[in-house]
């Protein structure tokens, strides 16, 4: 793989470059969509670290996304914090939620882990509803435009938002690339492949899984915090089960255990819904059929299959 270092770096930097160029080419609607997709794909990248690389099939990642969203939203809109520190608090919120859940849930594995993480996420969702007078529950609240300024950059402005989303996306993408190619990243993959054998080699599975989950929660929190500031809305829907399933689908579609897969999956799924909903009310069926086709013909997702068949060096 080291022999392809140039190609790997070139590919990932190329994707970032193409995304930057697309701002000047695409119509306004798609520019705004891409900003959303880039922010949400950071959530998917986070999920991919836990699921794709560490082998932790979580059904509770909405909690980490919502932790970032609500930490930032609460501090900025309700406590009057500036957006910059609010954003950092949101990122920390996602990581801390993952740490707390991980310390308890990682005592389990497999199906039990799925159930425990799902339970934690549901508890988080109900907590948001419980504190309705503060959170406005399912209805949610708006973050004022005046409060959505980070380091002098007004995130309600289309151009600023696009490049802020791109910066976050690029940072997350390169961090993921660095992580999965680092010794720690290789141990995470070892945990996915065979935790017992890794333990025999002297690596503590609990510790490494916790590292994977916290890194995953950090990215999910960053995505949630950025989404709140960029699009100005904080609501309990983002903590619901749907937002635990979505990153799983994005990652499965794009290719679990590939660095670019989560972005590709988020992109394809977004446009699958967007285009099919203009044609039919059964747009979720279209998504379902696409996933069925994936299971039948490309089990490892789009980039996973590509890696298997043509590009074995793809990280």
């Amino acid at each position, binding site marked *: 793989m080291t022999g392809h270092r140039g190609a790997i770096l070139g590919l990932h930097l190329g994707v970032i470059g193409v995304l930057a160029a697309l701002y000047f080419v695409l119509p306004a609607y798609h520019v705004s*969509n891409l900003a959303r997709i880039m922010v949400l794909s950071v959530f998917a990248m986070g999920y991919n670290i836990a699921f794709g690389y560490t082998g932790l099939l979580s059904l509770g990642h909405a909690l980490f996304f919502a932790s970032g969203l609500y930490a930032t939203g609460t501090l900025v809109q309700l406590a009057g914090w500036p957006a910059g520190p609010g954003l950092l608090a949101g990122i920390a919120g996602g990581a801390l939620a993952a740490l707390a859940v991980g310390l308890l849930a990682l005592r389990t594995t497999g199906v039990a882990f799925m159930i425990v993480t799902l339970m934690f996420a549901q508890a988080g969702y109900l907590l948001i509803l419980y504190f309705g007078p503060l959170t*406005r529950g399912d209805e949610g609240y708006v973050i004022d435009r005046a409060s959505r300024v980070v380091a002098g950059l007004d995130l309600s402005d289309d151009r600023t938002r696009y490049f802020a989303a791109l910066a976050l996306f690029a940072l997350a993408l390169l961090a993921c690339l660095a992580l999965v190619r680092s010794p720690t990243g290789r141990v995470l993959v070892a945990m996915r492949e065979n935790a017992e054998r890794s333990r025999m080699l002297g690596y503590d599975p609990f510790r490494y899984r916790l590292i994977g989950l916290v890194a995953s929660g950090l990215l999910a929190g960053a995505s949630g915090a950025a989404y709140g500031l960029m699009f100005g809305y904080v609501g309990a829907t983002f903590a619901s089960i749907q937002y635990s399933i979505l990153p799983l689908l994005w990652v499965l579609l794009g290719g679990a255990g590939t660095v670019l897969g989560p972005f590709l999956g988020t992109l394809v799924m977004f446009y699958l819904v967007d285009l099919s909903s203009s044609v039919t009310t059964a747009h979720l069926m279209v998504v379902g059929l696409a996933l069925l086709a994936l299971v039948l013909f490309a089990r490892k997702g789009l980039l996973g299959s590509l890696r298997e068949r043509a590009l074995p060096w793809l990280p």
Partner: protein
Amino acid sequence: MKDIPITRTPSRRGLLKGIAAGTGTLAAAGAFPGFIQAQSSEPIRLGFQLHRTGIGAAYGRWYERTAQAALQVLNDAGGINGRPVEILFEDDGTDPKRGAEVVEKLATQGRCDAVFGALFSNVVVGSAPRAGELRIPYLVCSEGHHVASGITNRWTLQPGITDVKSQVQAMAPWVAANLGKKVTMVFPDYAFGYDHRDFFTAAMEAQGGEVVELIAIPPTETSFTRHLPRIPSETEVLYHVMVGPAVLTFVKELGEFYGTGDHPEIFGFIDSLEAVDIAGPGLEFLEGTHFWEGHPRCLQPGASEHETFYRAAVGVDDNGASVSDAREVSTYAHMFSAWETLFVIKAGMEAAGYQGPDDRQAFVEAIEAMTEMPLSREHPQGDKVFNGRTHQVFGHQHISKVAEGRLEVVHTTSIEDGLYPDEVDYTTQPF
């Protein structure tokens, strides 16, 4: 001394050139008015943010039909400013994230002049910031208090339906005077329920009544049996409001709880029974109970000609069901808002001399300047008063009693009953 030009007979070539140039000019002159004509007769495009799927789908189906019927009437009468009108419907899945994306799609890709139609509060609150950023008029049909509370923005208006704060305030005096002063409230444990809890509690206290117990039902609840014993025996009125199919279980279990014995008066919001046949099986316990209705589902004696016109145009029978299928009950209490909002858009655009997106600000200002909305074909639910400062309209509310499976109106509030002090002045905010 200047030379005097000598007039010469034009050559054949010159004549041909002149004819060609003249013909070209004439052609151009002919084409230009055609271009102007094309500009001014281009359809006005309105986006409709539709709950076609998701929890709001029952409402969405009828909101679409109502908007289509209103569009037909509008275009038959010459459209807006003489221009035909098109509506682009786009499903938001009753999801706030998708809602914001749909506003974006309608505004940028659909090139719509304005967007309207959203009902569910979370979709409205989730979409309003994006509408504000895109500087597109966003007219909601939601009955939530969000617009009038000041959390939205200058581009967001609710000119087609009264908000919940006004609704409960208007009805509390009648409830206190006719049903009882000691109220137990059963409501969903989320924002929609809190609006009822807070506004009705305050309104009852103003009438010398009191809320003796608040029973918040978690949204994940499937049975209410364990909550019903919390209803105090001193309760004179049981106030219930719920969203979704849970109400069927609630009513059935309430019937089992009280059996054939005495029970408090029951007052509910029709929201939970919209699109549900009130004479259907399992709902017998509702006989003799009272409901709020924004617009009476069953045709009432002495209904206005505008009411009968509206009912026929949308295709609803005297019982509030589809004329083509009596089992398909409409969301009659709310869906008039889609109709009336479309005609407010027409009035606003005509007042503003609306030509295109550059006039969006003038359009919003024209709506802000509106006050009286008389009972008419455009406003079949009744006359209304619009408050341009809070972007909220105020109308009449109806209290109906279930009698032999029909909803009979027993009281109609005045507009003044529902007025409250302004909480925001959007007209002072920048666009």
